């Protein structure tokens, strides 16, 4: 059990690194989540609305949106990150560091979240939508007061999945100097063969994911009245 002694000895040096890495991860993921919801939610709503039999059927629009989403979904994140470097520089003025990483993280997660939104909205009982039409509701009213509230548990579950995926993507952002826990695992754990850092980041990541998932589960349960 000598590793415990060694860990105890090294912990004072490791802790600040891990703590800063955690903060970097949360910083990247939370901002990226914000942008993902801001763009992914309307995109998902549009995918459902423009569908045949949707509120505003528009097969051409649906085809274009669907293609964009699929392109976004089919790029491996690490490739997408490199592909959008010039956009990242344009938006943040740099291609390095956690702030720069927010751009590819958001772009990678928007189509992912949009598909989850689409799936959640599709679960809403068509009868309820028909009933709203029969009551004389406008289409925007139906989106705001029927579709989104009825799908809320599914939307939150999808958001939690997206955040967890973003945490996983953010580890790759380390490769372009994004920082965060993933970066620490690669630089200290892999490149310097330091198992202590490797396993410590694993534990930290597990804790972060676990906390977010539990929080999400509680929210979903509270929102669901089925």
């Amino acid at each position: 059990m000598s590793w415990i002694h060694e860990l105890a000895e090294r912990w004072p040096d490791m802790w600040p690194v891990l703590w800063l890495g955690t903060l970097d991860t949360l910083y990247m993921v939370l901002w990226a989540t914000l942008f993902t919801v801001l763009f992914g939610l309307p995109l998902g709503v549009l995918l459902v609305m423009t569908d045949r039999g949707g509120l505003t059927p528009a097969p051409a629009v649906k085809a274009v949106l669907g293609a964009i989403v699929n392109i976004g979904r089919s790029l491996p994140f690490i490739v997408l990150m490199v592909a959008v470097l010039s956009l990242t520089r344009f938006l943040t003025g740099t291609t390095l560091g956690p702030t720069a990483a927010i751009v590819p993280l958001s772009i990678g997660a928007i189509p992912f979240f949009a598909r989850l939104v689409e799936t959640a909205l599709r679960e809403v009982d068509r009868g309820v939508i028909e009933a709203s039409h029969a009551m004389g509701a406008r289409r925007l009213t139906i989106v705001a007061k029927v579709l989104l509230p009825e799908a809320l548990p599914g939307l939150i579950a999808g958001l939690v999945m997206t955040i967890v995926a973003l945490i996983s993507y953010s580890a790759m952002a380390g490769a372009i100097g994004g920082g965060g826990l993933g970066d620490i695992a690669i630089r200290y754990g892999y490149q310097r063969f330091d198992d202590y850092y490797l396993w410590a980041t694993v534990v930290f990541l597990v804790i972060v994911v676990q906390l977010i998932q539990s929080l999400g589960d509680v929210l979903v349960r509270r929102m669901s009245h089925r």
Partner: protein
Amino acid sequence: MINAVGLRKVYRLKDREVLALDGVDLHVRQGEIYGVVGQSGAGKSTLLRCVNLLERPTAGTVAVDGEDLTSLSGARLRAARRGIGMVHQHFALLSSRTVAANVAFPLEIAGVGRAERRRRVGELLELVGLQEKARAYPAQLSGGQKQRVGIARALASSPKVLLSDEATSALDPATTESILELLRDLNRELGLTILLITHEMDVIKRICDSAAIMEQGVFRESGKVLDLLATPGSLLARSLFPLPPADAPGVVTITYPRQFDEPLMSELTRRFDVDVNVLGGAVETVSGQSVGRLNVGIQGANRAAALAYLKDKGLLVEESTR
């Protein structure tokens, strides 16, 4: 109250066309309960959805309360729809809203203020007997309670017409009974005109003033229920009172379109010296009247005179065709 003329609805599928309505005329009087009965696929559901333009008819016009809906679109159609309530087979309640908030929903759509909404929701829940469930969610209610919420919601915007899409088909018999009673009460107390579709003859029998039998997109028969029963060869009479086939010689089917207190059968025997043999029969209360149908074997020398006597008394007498 509802006047639909020459309704046709054609659905275009990829490789063929489906004719859901093939020239239907529907006239529902102010204050009556009108039932359209037919099997699934007969076009009832399409017909009901054409009345509030959830489906736009391919041809024909629909007028509700004197307003031609088929000429409306956009905001004016939405406004017209607020004057037509609808209840649904599977209730179509919002699972994310409480009972009270569900009932308030059409009022929100109509832009009614919060205080007025609250007052109105209280009234409506009292009307359907669910005041104590105001804060419950639909998932916590029984089927019958859900349909009461559905009815309260349909009445929220004080419609003159209520459309009922198989409102009792997902309910058990006892609950069906109570929901039909509620509809009958609303019809009487509020003067509400109700158009309902159903596949259950029982619903027609219990609450409908008028009825239509629908098959393959057309009305086979339509009119006041009691008039239809008094019509020779009526499909409705045969469906409401299914009798076993009687192919014995000399059998007639006798329909009582209203209540008779006289002992007619024994009188036949006495007066005309014929043998009367009741082979099958049913007596039911229809539109508040006791109505019956009998298969009777009548034999004897004076058979023709006996039948003439019955017809004279106002009974419908049909020689058995089978």
